[in-house]
């Protein structure tokens, strides 16, 4: 009995922390409609900051707490809202989620940079460490009591804030109808800013409390958010009391599991599968159940308007692109060292995984946070199925994983948007914990995936695998193009653009979603099945999926080229550290930094570069300038002022990064274009002045550095030069007010009004 009480107290205290985190999620979701995946990471950063102030710099606890919770956290929240989230109005759920993923990646990178793991680090102490108080014969630490107190205080303060203050009333008004609040003189932007500040404070508080219980580690603090998702979903993302109840239930489940799992009656394995992974999966299972218990998302008309635009790919361009990619890879691969070949191969693997998101996310608008999970399943299938990696094995593996993909989508199919995305995240975590971590699947930590066995062709060198990967990407990419141009492709787009219209025209949304998920899972499985090497479960972990999703969206998830760009960028990024050691830390935050600016350009980088070239074709002056610049770089090379490598890299930089940006810089109206011009000039100087022959010691690294320089300076300039697009939230476009008047409409208006316009 006494034991039960102990575990109840432990459980409730854990639940109290979940409640604080989850209420922060609810506050931002309801006021800005953005589900903040980076919420846990905010708490993690706050805990580290507090540790820095309190234990490293020895400030008194109240001062450290005040500075962290009441100055830095609100400031962080305000800056996030102002500079990252505000640009996201009018974008799709996919872009919104990706930006929070980017923020997540950015914060983890920053924490790794500032606080590299170090065993000699000062310990993170509980509040009043060592003090306990006896309740019913059980010693409870003061820290736990303080945790309870904080949760209760948060509940009371939030209640008072929302119902008794002007700002609270304004917040609730924004929840009800943002546009209407604005029309009535309310200021939704300020309200949202306030909400993000509060949310960051709540995350910070929870992070500090949890760090006291579990020590200062990045991962558990960040994944804390999964528990919070479950609680917030139980509260249906809107109800704070339900959220608190959900958090308490989760905490108790965890504690009771801990208590009973050691008892003799408790099964240690089911059908030979160890279930030790269950404890870590409890929140995920609860999340899954809570998601499925949600009522079917109702078909509503007139909800979403997308800013993203992608054209239908033509066969001629696609085939040229595919042939070009294979030819380039064959040519380059001869120059690469073994280790660089493997790095580029890695980039192609990511590109195939990113490609799997094109039909699902880009076309059909369904978000998946689990693409690498399907790659992992593909790797397992390829290694376990008979045939030792011949083509039939590959096909069987793809078909099996595609079926699994459809099966996973089946229960989740009733959901849409954020709920669907979260259920794929839950699936990814479950598979990681319960399947990848099993002895049966990954014996001794890794398995060996056989190399694809094609008749008459021997592929056993890394170079062979690289060419195979480029071939696989091209083949699958053409398949995706074929899908886009087919009946199914049009249906996928219809599903994204207007589910309501699609359904009333006779389309089964369920069947279309299932097809999208199956195709996506099938493509992703190839990335695993073609690994042709030893693979470990960590490679396919849920947290590894997030950067892939992020960079696919950054590259442009609506097109095959975007997927390739995003995948290579991610593959290349991990190498930046080895290329230029001083940039090691920059590499950690780079994907996140690129991603948080997505709000400005939801179609992705690849689409934008293409558009920029098309505009340039009509501008002779700028074309001449571009040609002149390229000529000048050649002259510099011919006069031996710069090396051949600098000529090569600078020239490509000029063509791919400078030229497409010229129009925006010349035509821009704001002062930002000077900034953009300066940034781009720095890029030119950097690409020309680095001593590529000696400082960078291999061709592969030079190529990767080239891609990164183009991505960083080229894409960065685009984002700088562009006015941030602000859509009017009262949505006049929905009623057609934004369309230009036609001549007839003008005539009509003149007649009706009796005036000449």
């Amino acid at each position, binding site marked *: 009995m006494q034991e039960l009480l102990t575990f109840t107290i432990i459980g409730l205290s854990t639940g109290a922390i979940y409640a604080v985190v989850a209420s922060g999620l609810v506050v931002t979701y309801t006021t800005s409609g953005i589900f903040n995946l980076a919420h846990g990471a905010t708490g993690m950063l706050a805990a580290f900051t507090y540790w820095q102030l309190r234990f490293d710099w020895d400030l008194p606890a109240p001062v450290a707490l005040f500075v962290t919770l009441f100055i830095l956290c609100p400031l962080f929240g305000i800056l996030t809202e102002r500079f990252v989230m505000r640009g996201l109005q009018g974008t799709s759920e996919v872009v919104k989620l990706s930006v929070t993923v980017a923020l997540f990646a950015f914060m983890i990178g920053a924490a790794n940079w500032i606080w590299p793991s170090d065993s000699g680090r000062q310990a993170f102490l509980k509040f009043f460490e060592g003090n306990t108080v006896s309740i019913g014969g059980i010693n409870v630490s003061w820290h736990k009591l303080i945790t309870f107190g904080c949760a209760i205080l948060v509940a009371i303060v939030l209640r008072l804030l929302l119902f008794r203050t002007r700002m609270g009333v304004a917040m609730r008004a924004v929840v009800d109808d943002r546009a209407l609040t604005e029309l009535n003189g309310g200021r939704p932007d300020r309200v949202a800013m306030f909400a993000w500040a509060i949310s960051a404070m709540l995350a910070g508080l929870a992070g500090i409390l949890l760090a006291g219980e579990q020590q200062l580690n990045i991962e558990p603090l960040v994944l804390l958010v999964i528990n919070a998702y479950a609680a917030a979903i139980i509260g249906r993302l809107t109800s704070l009391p339900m959220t608190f109840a959900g958090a308490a239930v989760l905490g108790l489940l965890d504690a009771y599991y801990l208590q009973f799992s050691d008892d003799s009656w408790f099964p240690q394995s089911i059908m030979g599968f160890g279930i030790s992974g269950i404890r870590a999966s409890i929140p995920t299972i609860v999340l899954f159940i809570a998601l499925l218990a949600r009522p079917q998302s109702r078909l509503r008309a007139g909800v979403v308007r997308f800013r*993203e*635009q992608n054209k239908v790919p033509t066969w001629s361009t696609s085939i040229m692109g595919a042939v070009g990619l294979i030819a380039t890879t064959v040519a380059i691969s001869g120059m690469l060292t073994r280790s660089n070949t493997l790095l580029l191969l890695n980039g192609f693997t990511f590109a195939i995984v990113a490609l799997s998101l094109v039909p699902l996310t880009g076309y059909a608008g369904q978000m998946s946070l689990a693409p690498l999970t399907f790659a992992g399943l593909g790797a397992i299938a390829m290694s376990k199925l008979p045939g030792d990696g011949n083509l039939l094995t590959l096909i069987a593996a793809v078909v099996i994983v595609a079926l699994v993909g459809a099966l996973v989508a089946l229960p989740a199919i009733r959901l849409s948007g954020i709920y669907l995305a979260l259920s794929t995240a839950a699936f990814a975590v479950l598979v990681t914990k319960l399947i990848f971590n099993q002895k049966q699947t990954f014996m001794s930590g890794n398995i060996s995936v056989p190399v694809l066995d094609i008749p008459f062709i021997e592929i056993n060198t890394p170079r062979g695998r690289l060419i195979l990967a480029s071939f696989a990407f091209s083949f699958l990419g053409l398949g995706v193009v074929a899908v886009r141009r087919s009946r199914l492709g049009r249906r996928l787009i*219809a599903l994204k653009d207007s589910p309501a*219209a699609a359904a009333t*025209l*006779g389309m089964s949304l369920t069947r279309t979603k299932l097809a999208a998920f199956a195709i996506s899972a099938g493509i992703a499985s190839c990335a695993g099945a073609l690994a042709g090497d030893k693979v470990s479960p960590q490679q396919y972990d849920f947290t590894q999926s997030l950067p892939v999703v992020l960079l696919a969206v950054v590259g442009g998830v609506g097109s095959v080229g975007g997927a390739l760009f995003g995948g290579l960028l991610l593959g290349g990024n991990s190498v930046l550290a080895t290329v230029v050691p001083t940039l090691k830390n920059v590499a950690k935050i780079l994907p996140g930094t690129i991603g948080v600016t997505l709000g400005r350009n939801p179609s992705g980088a690849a689409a934008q570069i293409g558009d920029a070239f098309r505009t340039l074709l009509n501008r002779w002056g700028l074309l001449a300038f571009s040609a002149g610049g390229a000529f000048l770089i050649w002259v510099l090379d011919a006069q031996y002022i710069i090396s051949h490598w600098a000529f090569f890299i600078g020239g490509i930089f000029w063509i791919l990064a400078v030229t497409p940006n010229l129009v925006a810089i010349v035509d821009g109206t704001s002062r930002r274009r000077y900034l953009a011009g300066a940034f781009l000039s720095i890029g030119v100087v950097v690409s020309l002045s680095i001593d590529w022959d000696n400082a960078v010691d291999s061709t592969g690294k030079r190529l990767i550095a080239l891609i990164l320089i183009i991505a960083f300076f080229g894409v960065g300039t685009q984002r700088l030069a562009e006015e941030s697009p602000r859509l009017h939230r009262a949505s006049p476009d929905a009623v057609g007010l934004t369309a230009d008047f*036609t001549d007839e409409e003008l005539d009509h208006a003149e007649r009706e009004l009796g005036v000449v316009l």
Partner: protein
Amino acid sequence: MSLLEVRGVMVRFGGVMAIGGVDLDVQAGEVTGLIGPNGAGKTTLFNVISGMQEPTAGSVHVSGVDVTNEAPHRRAKRGLARTFQRLELFSSLTVRDNVRVAAELAALTNIDETVDNLLEKVGVSDLAEKTAGDLPTGSARLVEIARALATGPRLLLLDEPASGLDEAESDRLGILLHELTADGLGVLLVEHDMSLVMHVCDRIFVLDLGFIIANGTPHEIQHDPKVLHAYLGAPS
């Protein structure tokens, strides 16, 4: 037997009564008007008929078959098609592909020909290769009608098709409706343009605050004191 029979349909949102027991019939080969002030429940009734909103009570029959619990896409297979008051075109597809998706869903054999004919019929052939999201409201409404017709419907629900149309387009819409009903199609029309409604409708239902307060021929409706009261608030 009527093409569409709505019996006792009621919809509550929480404590708010949106529709309070509506009976309505649409006959094949006729244009039936559904008018009423803003907030009367017209779009909600459309959502119930097309399956996007589950009614709290009541039933919907299409050609004598009870479809009350069927999903929207099943009703479409029974010959029900609709347009939307706030446009619901597939904005990233071209105009042609918008209509094409619908034709493909209806499993027609000569899709290209059907699509061309429909674009011609509503008068947007010259816009065929434009992206639907870039269209002005008037053209977009016409494309929605073409798209709905591409499913080969027996019953067409039009939600304010003339709003955003200029006078010429509006006239052409009237002619189009006559042609369609001549082929045996039944049309249920929600519209605020009274001259169009009075001109094309064979029968009109008037909805106010969730209840049908009058129904009859255009002539009867124009002289019904209850209708005047609902629209103008004048004492009857």
